[in-house]
């Protein structure tokens, strides 16, 4: 027994030494050229279509750069999933922020996640460019040097939306919002601008993000008889509400926010989606300065999912990050400093100009309406030309 | 001698411990064969072994020349063996009629089912009166009738009866034994497992005594009545 035990002890030590050497070895090899950049977005769950579109677009930017012989570094792309859940977002943020080889990130479609994660980036000094989240507090809630955003906020969105709706003669609104900060803030800003523009919010309803049946709420709404039902939330719940509105014979105009505008919304509803309104920052792809270039590159790679509305933002954000790294070197502090310096950048989404909170001040809001199974810019639609009309 | 059922050198175990160790029993056609023994002797285990509820670990069980050990219960039953289980085990939330119909579960001919039900009602007129009552709400004696009647519904070749006297008043016990005799007179082989020695032997033709998982005595009813082994098994 004794000798056997000693044998085991020796074996154990040998195994330990071997494991260590195995682990240590690859770390001494190639250390130079590779620079890691990260992307975070919802790759699973209800809004994964937007997340995957964003991921593909950001990855595309890295691919294009890596093919460029003039690039100083080889970039390694790290794509992470925040599931559109704040708690997962915080964990993923911690993970990439604490990985010292990651120099910068393009992150977050969901405002709820972005709001909870920005502190982490600040704490770890990781430069992050937000590509989709629209809650104002992501940039304006704190004064974090590390946080930038290429897309506009929901303030602009709702201001445009309220003005548009009231000018089209709508007066009575009912709001349904999900209970995240995204939904709550939409409710707040939309109410504010509607009242300013002479409309009336009859009532508002909070719903949870995994709710399936809305007939009870909608029956109440039917009794209230609003002209417009405004929904502050994301596609999956929007699809359910719109389809159940129809079941209960509610004939109000349905209006959503940027979180609703995705191809999945139309796919989920078919003909019912006709006439739904949505407001979103940025111009449509074909009207963007680099839109044509972007869509041709995107199709070239052959992604099986569309870039969706925020794809170009993710591409632009990643490109900006890569440009900065090329110029200042793969160093977080240098990148943060460079991005904070006042400058204007050209990008496929047009000029990018960060204010002192890191917010892109160029915020054009586009109005969209679903026409024949497509999101069509309001100005180009048959609704605007009077051929078709919204619900009254 | 022709046999209905042969049990040869059967060993059955729950888990590790053998409950039956090398049981040999022959059940004669058209006769009443009884199995006597005190609590825990292994009587119920033997029945479970025959019916395939607890398949034997070793040994053979042969019914009308065909091996049935290890076969699933429903195919054993399909061969013509019926069982009136210990404690009656009627389906409490079914009516008397449904309970009887369950007894004829494998019988497809409506006519035969009707005929058998007629026979059962003839033996137990009380069941006919109460055919729509839920069996669980009946008294112990009535449940015993349901259970016996249910066993007869498939017109089995062999009827295994496990402790029909359990928990019944003396009057009912004698009544039950009279009926068992009657069933046998109609040509059905009966394997009667009982604690009640005297009444059992009074109606049986041949008997076995089981003790600690072994057959300790066997013989005709007359022989067993005077056997010391029987006394031993009960009174020590």
């Amino acid at each position: 027994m004794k000798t056997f035990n000693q044998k085991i002890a020796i074996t154990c030590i040998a195994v330990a030494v071997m494991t260590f050497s195995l682990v240590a070895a690859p770390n001494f090899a190639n250390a130079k050229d590779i620079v890691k950049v990260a992307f975070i977005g919802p790759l699973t769950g209800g809004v994964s279509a937007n997340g995957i579109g964003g991921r593909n677009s950001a990855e595309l930017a890295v691919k294009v750069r890596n093919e460029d012989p003039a690039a100083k570094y080889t970039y390694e792309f790290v794509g992470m999933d925040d599931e559109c859940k704040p708690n997962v977002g915080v964990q993923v943020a911690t993970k990439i922020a604490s990985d010292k080889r990651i120099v910068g990130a393009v992150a977050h479609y969901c405002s709820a996640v972005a709001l909870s994660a920005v502190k982490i980036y600040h704490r770890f000094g990781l430069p992050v460019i937000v590509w989709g989240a629209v809650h104002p507090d992501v940039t304006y809630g704190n004064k974090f040097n590390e946080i930038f955003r290429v897309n506009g906020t929901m303030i602009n969105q709702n201001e445009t939306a309220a003005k548009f709706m009231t000018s089209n003669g709508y007066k009575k609104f009912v709001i349904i919002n999900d209970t995240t900060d995204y939904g709550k803030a939409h409710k707040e800003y939309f109410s504010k601008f509607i009242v300013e523009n002479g409309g009336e919010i009859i009532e508002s309803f909070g719903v949870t993000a995994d709710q399936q049946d809305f007939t009870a709420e909608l029956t109440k709404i039917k009794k209230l008889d609003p002209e417009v039902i405004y929904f502050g939330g994301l596609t999956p719940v929007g699809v359910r509400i719109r389809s159940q509105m129809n079941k209960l014979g509610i004939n109000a105009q349905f209006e959503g926010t940027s979180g609703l505008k995705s191809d999945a919304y139309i796919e989920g509803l078919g003909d019912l989606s006709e006439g739904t309104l949505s407001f979103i920052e940025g111009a449509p792809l074909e009207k963007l300065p680099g839109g044509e270039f972007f869509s041709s590159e995107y199709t070239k790679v052959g992604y099986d999912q569309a870039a969706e509305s925020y794809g170009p933002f993710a591409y632009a954000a990643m490109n900006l990050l890569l440009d900065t790294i090329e110029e200042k070197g793969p160093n977080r502090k240098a990148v943060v400093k460079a991005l904070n310096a006042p400058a204007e950048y050209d990008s496929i989404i047009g000029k990018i100009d960060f204010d002192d909170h890191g917010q892109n001040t160029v915020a054009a809001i586009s109005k969209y309406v679903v026409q024949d199974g497509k999101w069509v810019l309001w100005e180009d639609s048959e609704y605007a030309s009077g051929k078709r009309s919204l619900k009254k | 001698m022709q046999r209905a059922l042969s049990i040869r050198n059967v060993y059955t175990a729950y888990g590790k411990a053998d409950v039956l160790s090398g049981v040999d029993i022959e059940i004669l056609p058209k006769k009443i064969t009884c199995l006597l023994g005190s609590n825990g002797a292994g009587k119920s285990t033997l029945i479970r072994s025959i019916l395939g509820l607890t398949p034997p670990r070793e040994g053979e069980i042969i019914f009308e020349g065909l091996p049935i050990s290890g076969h699933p219960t429903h195919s054993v039953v399909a061969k013509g063996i019926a069982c009136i289980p210990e404690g009656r085990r009627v389906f409490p939330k079914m009516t008397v009629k449904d309970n009887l119909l369950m007894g004829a579960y494998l019988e497809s001919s409506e006519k035969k089912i009707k005929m058998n039900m007629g026979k059962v009602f003839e033996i137990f007129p009380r069941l006919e009166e109460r055919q729509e009552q839920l069996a669980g709400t009946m008294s112990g004696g009535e449940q015993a009738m349901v259970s016996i009647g249910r066993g007869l519904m498939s017109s089995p070749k062999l009827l295994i009866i496990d402790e029909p006297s359990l928990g019944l008043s003396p009057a009912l016990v004698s009544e039950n034994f009279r009926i068992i005799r009657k069933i046998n007179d109609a040509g059905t082989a009966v394997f009667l497992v009982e604690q009640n020695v005297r009444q059992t032997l009074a109606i049986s033709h041949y008997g076995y005594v089981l003790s600690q998982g072994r057959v300790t005595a066997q013989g005709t009813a007359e022989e067993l009545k005077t056997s010391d082994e029987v006394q031993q098994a009960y009174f020590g």
Partner: protein
Amino acid sequence: MDISLLAQFTVNGLMLGMMYALVAVGFTLFFGVLDIIVFSHGDVVMVGAFAALTGHYWLTGIYPDMSMWVELFFISCISIITVAAFGMIMAKTMILRLRSASPLNTLLATMMLGTVLREAVRLFFPGGSNPKPFPVLLPDISASFGDFTLRFDSVILFVLGALLIVSLHLLITKTKLGMAIRAVAQDEETARLMGVNFTLIVLITFAIGSAVAAFAGVMNGLYYNEINFGMGLLLGAIGFSAAIIGGLGNIYGAILGGFLFAGLQTLGAVAMPFASAYKDVFAFGVVILIMAWKPTGLIAEKTSERV
């Protein structure tokens, strides 16, 4: 509250209750024959809805001009048959194996099975992570009485659901098969002694329960015109709750439980002095109170010795 609004809430509640009842019936059937809670049942409903959707893609691919009613009939059949077969395979390969396991293990295993189903649809159904439109296969007719809209499709679905429950009732009480199922539920061993092939009956019961779930899935799709991979989770939890508050093993209890739960949700949404979003808090809270008041369900049938 005026009468038309009340009628509207009642109709909504009844539709919801019918769906819950159909799910709860499966829970209680399975518990009856095997004394096992098959928690993945809610996700089987989801699989049923997706099977019907697949059938729709397939059929409209071949016969684009099929009439609504014919298509409805065929996709229901496709869904019910595939899901029933799936239920049998599931019972054979997994559930029967779990019979000797501890109740916690079976509960957890079937919960995990539910997750596997959910994730499988999400990952392997094309675009499975997005909500899917369910084809409109019922005529879009409705009658309005003031604020009360009675939709023809709701009426049809409700009637179909009720017919299904009635035929299930007839199957269980009037047929030989139903008798065997009841016998197994009351006393498995004695049922075997009567010549009942236990395994077969279990498989058939799973086929029936899963078929009912498939129907509930199709019904769900037709009612909401939208299905998604996550719809089964809460539906399963609610079906389980309904089966339990009704009293496990009792089909009528399950139906009662289903309607009761829908009633509680509707009540919580419209008649309570708090925001409608609290309706589930209210409904589950009442469920807990019911358990404290009637520890073996409203209609106590079979006490559960397990877990």
